[in-house]
């Protein structure tokens, strides 16, 4: 009896183990297939500047420079959440009112009338930041302040300000800790709010901020490692403060020579950082990211270059009935076989029709099919039609004259 029970117990354990293994495999497969099955459909950018006060001008300039870059490369304002903790452009201490520069040559004015700031001043808090990431807002929050990403989105999260070991300081009064960030990202992954996420942090000891991340599909780069400071690039003696940080300065240097159509890879971006120039080590974390960095173009995160699907059919009122008619044409290089396919279709249908006709004998149908065959043979359509039209007149006069 005991042996039997033991045997049955062992059988059940074996079955259970097998089930668990299958389950794990299944969920793995599902996870893999789910992330691979969804298509990359849109790009979002969340750009956060967490410092206030005039002497933190450079953090504002960092964020606005990245805002400009991201917009230039194609992400529209509807998909950018810009959080600026203070207003430098209209600050009383700004010698150049309504202008923000990131270089002492003052070539680029980063502020203009097409800058849309979504969270400004005291609205930039840790709570609001986490709400933006997780999407858990109050009902009254407008759409422009929400991160409306979906499972096909690539999100760029750029944070700059004062930070330290495992934290980032918000507004000189509170801090965002690394496990808070990791928790928020985990929630995002759970709610399928992103396909891939790139976190870029430009603070002191930046790499510690994403040390607690565990969600797959996340890539993170920080301007400095634990124990290192990130430095500003240069002081603008006219404005009176430092205007840009080194990490962001070299990032911008990489992007300024790009436009929407370049497909430089992330690897080239990450390897462009020179520790001696940065005066810190730019550390990036790829263990959670499946793809090879050489294959990923920077515009996957920093721009918005979408694949166009060209279709010929028009928007019509009764589209739901006609949905089968939509023909999707692939980009230009594949259009020739498409045309051939279109040409082949009638003859194929003709063959079927011929068979049908032979089944259903009808002299009329046979004549119609012969007419159609003759019509297929006509090459120069326009000339034939115009000859046909011109032929009408003599036909008419002859028939009238003959009085048939």
């Amino acid at each position, binding site marked *: 009896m005991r042996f039997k029970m033991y045997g049955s117990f062992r059988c059940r354990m074996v079955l259970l183990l097998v089930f668990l293994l299958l389950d794990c495999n299944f969920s793995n497969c599902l996870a893999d297939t789910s992330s691979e099955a969804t298509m990359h459909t849109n790009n979002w950018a969340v750009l956060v500047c967490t410092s206030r006060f005039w002497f933190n001008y450079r953090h504002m300039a960092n964020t606005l420079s990245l805002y400009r870059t991201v917009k230039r490369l194609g992400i529209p304002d509807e998909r950018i959440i810009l959080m600026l903790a203070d207003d430098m452009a209209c600050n009383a201490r700004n010698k150049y009112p309504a202008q923000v520069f990131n270089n002492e040559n003052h070539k680029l004015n980063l502020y203009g009338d097409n800058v849309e700031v979504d969270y400004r001043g005291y609205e930039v808090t840790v709570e609001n930041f986490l709400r933006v990431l997780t999407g858990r807002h109050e009902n009254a929050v407008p759409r422009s302040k929400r991160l409306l990403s979906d499972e096909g989105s690539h999100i760029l999260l750029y944070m700059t300000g004062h930070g330290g070991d495992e934290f980032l300081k918000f507004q000189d009064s509170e801090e965002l800790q690394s496990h808070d960030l990791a928790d928020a990202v985990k929630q995002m992954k759970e709610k399928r709010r992103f396909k891939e996420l790139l976190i870029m942090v430009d603070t002191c000891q930046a790499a510690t901020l994403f040390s607690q991340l565990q969600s797959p599909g996340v890539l993170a780069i920080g301007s400095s490692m634990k124990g290192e400071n990130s430095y500003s690039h240069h002081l603008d003696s006219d404005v009176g403060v430092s205007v840009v940080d080194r990490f962001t300065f070299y990032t911008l240097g990489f992007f300024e020579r790009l436009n929407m159509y370049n497909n430089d890879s992330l690897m080239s971006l990450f390897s462009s950082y020179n520790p001696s120039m940065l005066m810190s080590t730019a550390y990036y974390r790829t263990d959670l990211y499946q793809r090879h960095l050489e294959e990923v173009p920077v515009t996957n995160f920093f721009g918005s270059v979408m694949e166009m699907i060209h279709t010929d059919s028009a928007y019509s009122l009764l589209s739901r009935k006609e949905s089968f008619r939509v023909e999707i044409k692939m980009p230009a290089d594949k259009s020739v076989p498409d045309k051939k396919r279109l040409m082949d279709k009638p003859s194929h249908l003709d063959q079927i029709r011929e068979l049908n006709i032979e089944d259903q004998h009808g002299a009329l149908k046979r004549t119609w099919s012969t007419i159609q065959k003759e019509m297929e043979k006509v090459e120069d359509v326009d000339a034939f039609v115009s000859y046909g039209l011109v032929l009408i007149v003599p036909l008419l006069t002859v028939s009238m004259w003959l*009085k048939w």
Partner: protein
Amino acid sequence: MEPKEQSKEKKEKLWFWNWVIASVIFRLVLIYFPKNLNLASRPEVSTPLTSLRRLAEGYWLKQLSMYPYAGSMYHGSPLLLSLLGPLTVKRIEGQPDHLLCSLVFVIADIVNAMLIRATSQNLQMEYTRSLKLLDHVKLSEKPGKIIPSGDIAALVYLWNPFTIVACVGLSTSPIENLAIILSLYGACKRQAPLAAFGWVIATHLSLYPAILIIPMILLLGYGPDTPPRKLFLQRRNVEVGDNPPNDRCEREEVVHRPELPHVFSWRPVIHFLCWTSLWSVYVLVLCGISVKQYGGLWELFKRTYGFMLTVQDLSPNIGVLWYFFAEVFDFFRNFFLIVFHGNILFMMLPLAIRLKHRPCFLAFVYIAISSMLKSYPSVGDSALYLGLLGLFVNELADMQFSFFLFCGYVGVSLLSPVMHNLWIWRGTGNANFYFATAMAYACLQIILVVESVSAMLNHDRTLRKPLTELQDGKN
């Protein structure tokens, strides 16, 4: 007397031709007008079916080897595209845009007027002949008092502001009208191939003239408009009553009188039907060849006739369908499409039964009804039936409400652009303003149809009166 009459006739002819030439010059002046009159953008003038701009777009797509119906701009016939398309592209230095097309439309208008005149001459001949047959004492005595309806109809057509606006406003309705009038003319002249050609082309260009098959068949079978058959029978009875056929000679006399014109002759009708099938096969083959790369004839029919019947474009026009179909629920859309189009169809049979002795007038009534209830009406359609109204000036002389209708038409044609401006450009009005004028226009058309039909029937009754009096007198 004779030279006086001749000079009088010459004067009349000269007067007519002067007015025709003046109308052509007026059209040319409007075409060459330095300021842009912007008539082609008026919704009353150009509809999705008749707009030349859409035809130009369709032709441009065709030149790029794309499907001309892609993008839902052009919805007309591919043959018209091959005919007018090259003309829209040719630009001559220093001349207004689309000059060649405007000239084509002006020529179409002139041909329409001439055909109307020729048709009316035929009708008038028949009218006087039938009056003589009835020995109508009153009416046949004063031939001079019979107004030359042909000249009047042609001039009404040419000088109708609706026609001028449709011609100068680059709408293809002069060509559609040409096809309809050609078919009427051919049927009046008993030319089956011409009538068949006109009918096939008219149906092909805009589906609604298909209902004219009934007046065509009646025209070819019975001949042009005559008083009702009963009158002839009555007349015969009166005569027979007068001289009882005692002698054979008198009986033969009775028999040898000019024949009763109301025997339905099948031969012309069968000829007509044969020619319709021939012409329709010809047109279908040509269309099929021009669209064979893009899905064939069925696709073409969906884009042209399907578009017309399913009212896919709901931009405002002078009709009544757009407003309704903008707010109808999807579930009921097909039902109401059937109802609206059935409105045209169910009036066909009763009118045909009542007016079978007057097929030309029946055609006029059908055209009026279809221009009111078609999916995208324009003033070009009204131009046609207002011109044809002139053909029946003699019979409709006692029409009631004629002044009211005239004022109504003038009022609607002035108010409609104002309401459109208020709605679209100034934003101080809304769609109801514009739709109110459209409804008023539809009401006017209904009153016109009803009054003209009752006037015609009254006229037939007045013809019958003297005969009945004669009969009573005999009895």
